[in-house]
């Protein structure tokens, strides 16, 4: 390497730009106990709010007795729906075009629904107040099963919707029906099935689960009566949208509302929505004129804030005898609970479920999703996934496995045979998506080689041949394609606001910088990675770039962080804002070097005169010039804003393989190996990517192996504490092996696609694929999650395999 090259490499390394496994900037505060989470916030005069919740799932409220509570020392107020009515705050609009009760208005619709709130001087007094509030209920018949809900004589759940024959998403066929949403071409799909040589069909339940971040939801609302200004610190993945909603609800101008998402202890979709607790705390603060804190406990979090999934899926594949898939049909009954509060782009009540043709070139496909009310908590969020992509990947991957089994074909072979080929991109799916880029065959081959798939199959055959083998061995294989980065505003909006995102970059006179973003990190490391994009684009060391998000008073409007949209959307906004600065900097550099812009080359951190290494100006020099003495005709300062409306989604993909050993005595499933190959396009910080993948795989493991929210016939949630709801510890969690390929997105400014959700989406069907594979020699093609030891043991019993 000559000296120029080595100094170039040094300069590049000094930036810690894209591709660098830079250590995280946010860690210093977290490892010293100096994070600033909602419950850490204290304000002068702050009081506490706690919630009275319904013990029953469906009932009429006869009377609420506040008197005893009000006598408790420290209790300041007890509020019910009647108290919120004058402010029209007893109901609120949901993101899905429905309304949800803030406090139960005459009726409760699910167990643990918010019935009243108690405001008190400290959290113990508030809890005492909650105990003392007496509510008289007249119980009503409960509907838990969504199929029962659609029976003609089923109890009417939503009396407030009586006579409404259409909702936000078209006609309602029944009093408990919310919408029916179709995608694809029904006639073409039916025709494919009519002439199919082979058909498979399976009913698959994706159980109701909960994202359960380690920090629960909460807020501190503070209304200043003199200034008429509302400040609310909130666990929100989308603070700007919350501000808009609060403004619409309260009538306070958006300019007088400040929503701040401080440090957030994990979101995973749980912190997208607006919950009654927030609204009540805000309402109480407006009425009392003092700060009100509300932080829910874990039981409240699991029972009442947004769940995920609960899709009852009926899927079918049509194929030729040699395994070429010719058609796909999926019918879903989606249990949305008591209010339709799904967090999806407005036009997509089933989110991106229509990515369910997966990684395969399927000529004809149709899907239909029916949303139904039941006596369960509302929600339906994307638990570490992009709007129902997890459900979509699960159904197609299960069906492909089932088809392979029916044909006696290998699961890898059938996938390779049906994959969209590299040269088919951009690929138009039967559901209308335009997949940007992919190379599925290369990824599959890499995983097969790394795992020595042939040897695994041979070992499995030997085990199956041995009746005394103490364990069953299963091999799971999945290929997934995600659709993330919502999204083009012509398709995607939330409450009418297009799903763009934004970045504002300001270079200071001495060459350091600040970037403000419309997104909000919940552990993804934005403060680290966003700076790396700017470092590479502008040649400023990432160390001196501050990244700020989450405060609506300072950050540009953005739609927030969920659905893997931060890098695809906000990441693009950063690159383009930086490029605006770059263009201006070039003009200034040309003036400083007394040459034409065309005579300049950009090199890492400087503009230099072509062919003359010693004649250059660094970005730092240029920044000073921009404030000190900008050239004539050029505005002083060096900053830019960009609002990025993506032209398309991005389509990360991956191939996962898993080997399990199932104990024939106990049904316990040991994950022997799990190999995850992800392709998220351009990689910004490999260390953070790997960390995100570990986390997503672990959450996927939790869902596949143990998470569920079962209800009894009375609507009691059987298991709403961490005693029952499965969060794996370090002991159960498998060791993860990760790998990658890089297929950049052609339409994204830096080619990045987004990553954090892929491992969740991809791993869940992989575990099922592996566990079911262990039983394949007995003709078993599918059984539902979660694959807890007891459930797997029952399966062993059923097939005479238990020891």
């Amino acid at each position, binding site marked *: 390497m000559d000296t120029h090259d080595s100094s170039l490499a040094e300069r590049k390394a000094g930036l810690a730009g894209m591709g660098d496994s830079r*250590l*995280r900037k*946010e*860690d*210093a*505060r*977290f*490892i*010293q*106990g*100096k*994070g600033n*989470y909602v*419950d*850490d916030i*204290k304000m002068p005069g702050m009081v506490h709010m706690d919630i009275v919740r319904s013990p029953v799932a469906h009932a009429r409220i006869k009377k609420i007795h506040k008197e005893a509570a009000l006598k408790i020392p420290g209790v300041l107020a007890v509020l019910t729906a009647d108290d919120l009515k004058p402010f029209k705050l007893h109901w609120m609009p949901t993101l899905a075009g429905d309304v949800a009760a803030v406090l139960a208005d005459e009726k409760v619709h699910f167990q643990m629904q918010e019935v009243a709130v108690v405001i008190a001087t400290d*959290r*113990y007094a508030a809890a005492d107040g909650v105990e003392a509030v007496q509510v008289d209920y007249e119980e009503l018949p409960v509907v838990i099963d969504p199929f029962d809900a659609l029976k003609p004589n089923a109890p009417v759940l939503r009396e407030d919707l009586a006579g409404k024959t259409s909702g936000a998403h078209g006609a309602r066929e029944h009093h408990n029906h919310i919408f029916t949403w179709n995608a694809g071409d029904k006639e073409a799909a039916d025709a494919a099935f009519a002439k199919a040589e082979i058909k498979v069909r399976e009913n698959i339940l994706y159980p109701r689960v909960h994202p*359960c*971040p*380690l*920090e*629960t939801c909460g807020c501190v609302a503070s209304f200043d009566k003199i200034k008429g200004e509302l400040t609310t610190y909130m666990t929100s993945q989308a603070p700007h949208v919350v501000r808009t909603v609060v403004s619409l609800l309260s009538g306070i101008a958006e300019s007088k509302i400040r929503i701040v998402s401080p*440090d*957030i*202890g*994990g979101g*995973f979709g749980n912190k997208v929505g607006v919950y009654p607790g927030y609204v009540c705390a805000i309402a109480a603060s407006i009425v009392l004129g003092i700060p009100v804190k509300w*932080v829910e*406990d*874990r039981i409240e979090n699991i029972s009442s804030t947004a769940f995920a999934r609960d899709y009852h899926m009926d899927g079918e594949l049509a194929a030729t005898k040699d395994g070429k898939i010719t058609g796909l049909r999926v019918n879903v009954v989606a249990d949305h609970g008591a209010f339709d509060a799904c967090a999806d782009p407005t036009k997509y009540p089933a989110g991106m479920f229509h990515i369910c043709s997966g990684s395969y070139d399927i000529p004809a496909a149709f899907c239909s999703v029916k949303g139904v009310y039941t006596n369960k908590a509302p929600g339906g969020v994307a638990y570490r996934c992009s709007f129902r992509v997890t459900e979509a990947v699960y159904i197609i991957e299960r069906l492909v496995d089932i088809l392979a089994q029916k044909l006696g074909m290998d699961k890898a072979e059938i996938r390779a045979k049906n994959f969209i080929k590299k040269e088919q991109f951009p690929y138009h799916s039967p559901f209308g998506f335009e997949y940007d880029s992919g190379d599925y065959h290369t990824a599959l081959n890499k995983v097969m080689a790394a795992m020595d798939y042939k040897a695994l199959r041979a070992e499995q055959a030997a085990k199956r041949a041995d009746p005394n083998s103490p364990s069953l061995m299963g091999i799971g294989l999945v290929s997934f394609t995600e659709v993330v980065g919502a999204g083009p505003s012509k398709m995607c909006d939330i409450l009418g606001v297009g799903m763009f995102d934004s970045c504002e970059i300001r270079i200071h006179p001495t060459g350091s910088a600040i970037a403000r973003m419309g997104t909000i990190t*919940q*552990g*993804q*490391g934005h403060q680290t990675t966003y700076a790396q994009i700017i470092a590479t684009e502008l040649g400023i060391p990432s160390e001196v770039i501050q990244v700020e998000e989450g405060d609506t008073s300072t950050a540009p409007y953005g739609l927030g962080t969920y659905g893997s949209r931060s890098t695809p959307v906000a990441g693009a906004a950063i690159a383009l804002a930086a490029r605006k600065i770059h263009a201006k900097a070039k003009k200034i550099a040309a003036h400083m070097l007394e040459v034409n812009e065309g005579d300049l080359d950009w090199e890492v951190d400087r503009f230099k005169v072509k062919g003359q290494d010693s004649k250059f100006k660094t970005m730092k020099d240029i920044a000073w010039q921009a404030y000190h003495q900008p050239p004539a005709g050029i505005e002083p300062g060096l900053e830019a804003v960009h609002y990025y409306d993506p032209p398309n989604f991005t389509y990360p993909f991956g191939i996962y393989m898993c080997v399990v050993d199932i104990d024939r005595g106990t049904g316990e499933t040991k994950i022997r190996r799990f190999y995850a190959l992800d392709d998220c396009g351009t990689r910004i910080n490999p*260390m*953070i990517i*790997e*960390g*995100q993948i*570990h*986390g*997503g*795989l*672990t*959450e996927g493991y939790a869902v596949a192996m143990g998470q569920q929210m079962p209800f009894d016939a009375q609507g009691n949630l059987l298991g709403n*504490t*961490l*005693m029952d709801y499965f*969060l794996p*510890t*370090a*002991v159960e*969690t498998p*060791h*993860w092996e990760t790998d990658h390929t890089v297929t950049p997105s052609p339409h994204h400014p830096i080619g990045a696609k987004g990553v954090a959700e892929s491992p969740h989406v991809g791993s869940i069907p992989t575990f099922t694929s592996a566990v079911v594979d262990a039983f394949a020699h007995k003709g078993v093609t599918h059984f539902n999650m979660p694959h807890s030891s007891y459930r797997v043991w029952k399966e062993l019993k059923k097939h005479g395999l238990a020891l």
Partner: protein
Amino acid sequence: MAKKLIHVTVNGQSHEVAVEPRLLLIHFLREQLNLTGAHIGCETSHCGACTVDLDGQSVKSCTHLAVQCDGSSITTVEGLAQNGVLHAVQEGFYQEHGLQCGFCTPGMLVRAQRLLQENPNPTEDEIRQGMSGNLCRCTGYQNIVKAVQYAAKKLSQAAAAAA
């Protein structure tokens, strides 16, 4: 409710405070002493976000009453760094990317430093067992294991150098 006077030493500083008998240790630390490093993730002893060191043992401060700690010495995450120098476990979590949202981290760190005193040279399995009272929803634990290994190595090197 009649308050009771307790005397506790927290991160080397002694406090004499009158508390309600039902006050949980976690609320005492967070709300009365403004030590908000330890967090509340469940209040049922499952998550470990509230872990502190009480007289040489890791405890979940959501299931201890402040009055039970009368006369005790407590270390929280805020007390791990000494004279501005990070503790080896803090350094390990930073170097090995052992945290994401950071909510579990204070409890993890306090537990990890105690684990390494109980067993200065743990195997991966022993680390996983020893940390199993602390839940993390973000990292998948793999880097937490590495972080604890990093700290174990650093501490044993320091001990060897001192010997």
